[in-house]
């Protein structure tokens, strides 16, 4: 096979592993001035679609954007926003911004960890919840706040945690 044919095979493989809209987006930015600068924007789109980034998608991005794959993974791993593990069905984010911290968000976090037996950045064994820490979500007047998926819970106390989690299918082991 000619080099150009080989390239095409690789390109097709890469195309197949990404949704059409993202492939088109990559093609549109690649021809722009400083096209490689859109790498982070592309990774945002991939993560938005899949919920996380895995090797297959990242090498597809590398292939289509003509950026070395070491650089793609290097950039992706630098930024906290990108995650390489699948997230749970419900995403918990406890705000640890200064206002929430001063108002006791740390104790709320401890309670969540205790009840779900999960660490920050991880997902429960049953894949129901993943736990993250947010830095000021702009609702300081309601501190401390806990966000489940899109919903914001205000003035959360450690004793409220079990009740909130139960809304999402958590069953306390008595």
């Amino acid at each position, binding site marked *: 096979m000619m080099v150009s044919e080989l390239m095409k095979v690789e390109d097709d493989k890469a195309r197949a592993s990404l949704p059409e809209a993202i492939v088109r987006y990559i093609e549109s930015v690649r021809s722009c001035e400083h096209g490689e600068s859109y790498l982070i924007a592309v990774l945002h789109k991939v993560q938005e679609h899949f919920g996380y980034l895995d090797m297959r998608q990242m090498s597809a991005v590398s292939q289509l954007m003509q950026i070395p794959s070491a650089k793609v993974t290097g950039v992706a791993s630098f930024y*906290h926003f990108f995650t390489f593990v699948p997230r749970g069905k419900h995403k918990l984010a406890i705000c640890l911004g200064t206002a929430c911290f001063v108002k006791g968000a740390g104790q709320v976090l401890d309670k969540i960890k205790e009840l779900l037996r999960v660490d920050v950045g991880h997902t429960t064994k049953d894949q129901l919840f993943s736990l993250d820490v947010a830095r000021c979500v*702009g*609702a300081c007047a309601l501190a401390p706040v806990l966000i489940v998926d899109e919903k914001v819970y205000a003035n959360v106390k450690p004793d409220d945690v079990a009740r909130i989690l139960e809304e999402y299918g958590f069953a306390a082991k008595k």
Partner: protein
Amino acid sequence: MATPMEQLLERRRNAKFHLFRDKFSADVRITVGSATCENAAGSEAVRRRFQELLDQHKPKHVVIGNVGCSGKCDMEPVVLIVRPGELPVKYVHMTPERVDEVFAEHVLNGRQVEKYTMRHEAGMPAADRVISVCEGAHCRAQSSEIQKAFRESLAAAGLAEKVVVTPSACQGLCAAGPVAYVYPDDVMYQHVTPEVAARIVNEHLVGDRPCSDHIWQESRVTNRFAPLYSDVYFFGKQLRITLRNCGVIDPESLDEYLAVRGYEAAVTAMTTMTPMDVINAITKSGLRGRGGGGFPTGVKWNFAASQASDTKYIICNADEGDPGAFMDRSTIEGDPHTIVEGMILAGYAIGAKRGFVYIRAEYSLAIKRIEKAIEDARAAGFLGKGIFGTACDFDIEIRLGAGAFVCGEETALIHSIEGERGQPRPRPPYPAVIGLWGKPTVINNVETMANLPAILLDGPEWFASIGTARSKGTKVFALAGKVKNTGLVEVPMGTTLRQVVFDVGGGILNGKRFKAVQTGGPAGGCMPESALDTPVDYDSLMAAGSIMGSGGMIVIDEDSCMVDMARYFLDFTQDESCGKCTPCREGTKRMLEILNRITSGRGVEGDVEKLLRLGDTIKKTSLCGLGQAAPNPVLSTINHFRAEYDAHIREKRCQAGVCTALLSYTIDPEKCVGCGACAKKCPVNCIKGQPKSVYVIDGVRCIRCGNCFKACKFNAVQRK
């Protein structure tokens, strides 16, 4: 052909926006707060309920719109009702149920529902009128005399109960000072003396004939909305330049922005001023960067303008990394066109044709609003080729951050826009010389940008008259923590911390004792009670051992442990260190280890000295501002709260009861009635006793969870 200015004015005339002063508007206007904070507080349900009622009743001449956050976050959701020819009324803590009442009474029948109004809820005395007398730097000398004269005349006229006299912050009208504002009449008096005060009482308040020779007639961007801020205790101590349109106009409407003189500054600059004129005006205004560093904006622009390069860039820094701050997001959510206009001005001044807004990916609503503003401006011909019909091109693109605090640092930010890892590089060369893709680049903070149109509209002299000798204008703070009024606060530079925390903020929640106020976030410091009279300006805060920072202001009370606070910030910076240089990467780790040791009861003599030494080295040898400032929260708490460190280390005691490992629980035999409630709650069953006898905790097995402390209704469980 019409000139660009004529075209703009024509558009403004056609803009559909009726301010409350527009007596000719037939519409009743309902506006519902719509911002991240408002939505979290439930404003979307409130808006839906209004919409349902409108669909149901189909009243004529009632319109509904959105506005950004007005800053009074603890009272959200906030709804504003404006009836033609009447003063606006703000309703707070709105719920769908309250909407029903307000709709039926006020919207349909014109009767205010007093009990839900901001005035009522803010505990303003049930007065007919409020007179606020300016106490800003220029009016201060005469202010108390004037207030006294008002009070005496009011007493003589038998109005003492009906009119409240209160001081206000600088109103930005220093040349007309001393000024006094009469609410709800919405009359601003200038050059007030004790004699004029007596006349105002007799002629205006008693005789209903305002003293026309002392009425201030001009319109400043900052003063047009005075009656909107009906809670004078919260708003009266503020001056809104950056936030002038937030909570007033619909952030998603170009028309409404045009109606409040939007894009007038840009067109004026581009048609009547040279780029150098614009730079000189900004230099003269004394504006300094609001992103934390406080570098004079005009000087920075001058560097970039004097570079011989065809390609230059403008970047608006909306990364807002301080974990306790939300000023920039609120500004973008509430008034995105101001940022677009500010960037156009900056671009024109330095000769840039492309601008970037670098914004955090987490700020979904702000991203949506700025995207829409850019699209609308482009559609109107305000962005793109030949903007406003001039020969200049300028366009703006949005780039998303991806959760790295260090990317707020300007050289890291540039790398991030280039699609690289966001690591800083040494400066010089500064970005103004070698920046994005190697081209001269000016990076300014959101708040800096938002000030630009106001400065050009009302003049650099006006701007420079507000504030202190070396810090001009105002500063926006995100006031939060253990304070009564939380939200966005904009005060003239030179206002003291005490005024912000106690006058605007309303003091400490639940009658607790004030302990410290933190500014500057992870790069700043904690200031104790003794520093409360420090004026808010770049130099004074620095001298007091903190920094202005970007605007986070967190109030801390006696329930917080200062060692734990220091640990919190260091934990943050340690986690965010990009790892490029050793002092920051390793040094912050060592400091955190020591702090963890101290808060878990394993601190040893000499630990504080080690922290001081390490902190000093990190400050001196780190490559970028993150490392250079990382030790600040630790050093400032050691400086002001050394006794707390010593108590942790020597006595293994945490006064605030925060460091759980240092607490011990015992039962006071005098107080225990033997109810057994504590024992039932103990997860490790280490409380022994028989009903009706004294219970005892086995201190060795106790895991210090605090359950027993909470369970005991007789205060018999002691925590030390």
